[in-house]
């Protein structure tokens, strides 16, 4: 036999597994609870006649429990699907709970209002562009980072770029922009070609001849070096090797004053060979009066 008061006496005084006590309120975690609070009137266990509204996948249902079915727990809760139309749903509630206590009817309608409101909000949010959270996988991230570092080292990007640009220069893509003195330019190119030939392993008899020729050329060209791209900072440019640049167009010297190459990391790499001969370095010292100290 169901005796609500007895049940409530036990649940309230000793232990209820659905009860959660906080500083200000007592909550009921039972899924059929109408208000969510733990009180005599809203406890689904301590009331044999009880009703709730619950929502499943956007559809609201009215659950009702009566004393007659108290002995059949599997058939205890009667489930009525409510219409999608709010007005009609309220009418359905009124119709189903017509002779029920006022409290339950009111609370059911209030709960229906809240549920429909949050369903509307969910639908609106889904239309907006929310950011998709993509979880990162730590191992994979670590692996990829390390592989990238190794790839960077293996890439030797600057060398590759230099080669490409020199190729383009040789093919004449740039036309007449760079005015190198023809003889020196050709000699430098010839020199480079022979170097690359030497590196390849060929089974030809002419190999020896080429080697000899190369040696002679090398002796002649001791002073002139290969055509290559050198990273030179603006200051150094002004000091050294100005004599070598006589033949170059004036525009190159002017442009050297600008900041030259953005290479990440090091700001200048001077080829040792550029200072091979005895270059005279002139240092200028300027005496400036110390600025008068200004007190803030």
């Amino acid at each position: 036999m169901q005796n609500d008061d007895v049940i409530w006496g036990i649940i309230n005084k000793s232990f209820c597994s659905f009860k959660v006590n906080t500083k200000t309120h007592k909550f009921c975690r039972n899924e059929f609870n109408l208000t969510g609070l733990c009180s005599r009137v809203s406890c689904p266990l301590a009331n044999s006649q009880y009703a709730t509204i619950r929502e499943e996948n956007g559809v609201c249902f009215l659950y009702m429990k009566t004393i007659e079915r108290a002995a059949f727990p599997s058939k205890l809760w009667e489930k009525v699907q409510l219409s999608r139309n709010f007005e009609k749903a309220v009418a359905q509630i009124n119709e189903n709970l017509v002779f029920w206590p006022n409290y339950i009817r009111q609370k059911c309608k209030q709960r229906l209002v809240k549920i429909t409101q949050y369903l509307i909000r969910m639908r609106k949010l889904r239309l907006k562009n929310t950011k998709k959270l993509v979880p990162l996988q730590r191992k994979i991230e670590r692996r990829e980072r390390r592989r990238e570092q190794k790839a960077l080292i293996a890439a030797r990007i600057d060398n590759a770029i230099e080669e490409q640009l020199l190729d383009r220069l040789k093919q004449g893509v740039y036309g007449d922009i760079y005015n190198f003195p023809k003889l020196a330019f050709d000699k430098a190119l010839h020199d480079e070609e022979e170097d690359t030939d030497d590196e390849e392993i060929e089974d030809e008899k002419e190999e020896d001849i080429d080697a000899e020729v190369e040696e002679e050329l090398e002796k002649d060209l001791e002073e002139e070096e290969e055509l290559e791209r050198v990273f030179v900072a603006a200051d150094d440019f002004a000091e050294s090797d100005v004599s070598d640049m006589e033949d170059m167009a004036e525009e190159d010297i002017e442009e050297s004053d600008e900041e030259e190459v953005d290479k990440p990391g090091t700001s200048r790499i001077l080829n040792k060979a550029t200072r091979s001969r005895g270059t005279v370095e002139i240092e200028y010292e300027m005496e400036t009066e110390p600025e008068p100290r200004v007190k803030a």
Partner: protein
Amino acid sequence: MSSESENEVDVKEEKPILEDYNELIRKANKIPVKHKRREEIRKAIRQKKKLKKKDRDSRRKEAEALGEDAPPKQVPHTLESLREKDETMVNHEGSDSEVEEDIKIDEFESYFNQSYVPKVVITSSANPCLKTRLFLKELCQVIPNSTAFHRRQSAVKKMISSSIERGFTDVIVINEHNKEPCSMLVTHLPTGPTAFFRLSNVKLTKHIKRDWREITSHRPEVILNNFNTRLGVTIGRMLGVLFHYDPQFKGRRVATFHNQRDYIFFRHHRLVFLLM
């Protein structure tokens, strides 16, 4: 008996080889006492290094002595040298007729016919952070004829349709993570392909101690290195299409996309040719 004694003598005169030194290291690793173990390991490694150096020097001397007949120089194995050749590798030197045919029909063909000037719009996610904003500005400097545009909350699809109306040809969307730009979505507009890249090691000009104002408005050269497979060719073209097809060599700017082991490294340089 005499033959045995000869063998013994031979064995004693045998030079120690690399295997013996590896054995020493392995033994040293097994000593349970920490300070002793460390010392032994250090000693063994030192000896191994010495042996390797001796080896190297002797090999070099032999090569010099022999001159042209020297055995070929030993080159260490790298990932690049050991990689299995992919079926879809493209032969850049020779003429791969199939590739050429495909290239003529693909979505970028109008660019390579020089029929239009690329116009790029660069955006970010909703509320970009400082780094992303600076990155947008710098990308605008690097890519000619591009505009940075802050989209407040508009959806990407909407933005793309409106940029098609305004005549843009490429869209770049930069997303961020942890207040840094972390990924890039590149779309070629009139129904072109879309690619999604993850960015790492994003360095602005201030990190390289340079000024973004030094990037002039001359149209840069583009270098695409190592895009060797069919997929690589497509991606390379996609990146190249962002830039103008007719570079101004006077400006001496070059933008490089270098592909190494499926990582694409981007660099922007100002260059000078010096005859030394």
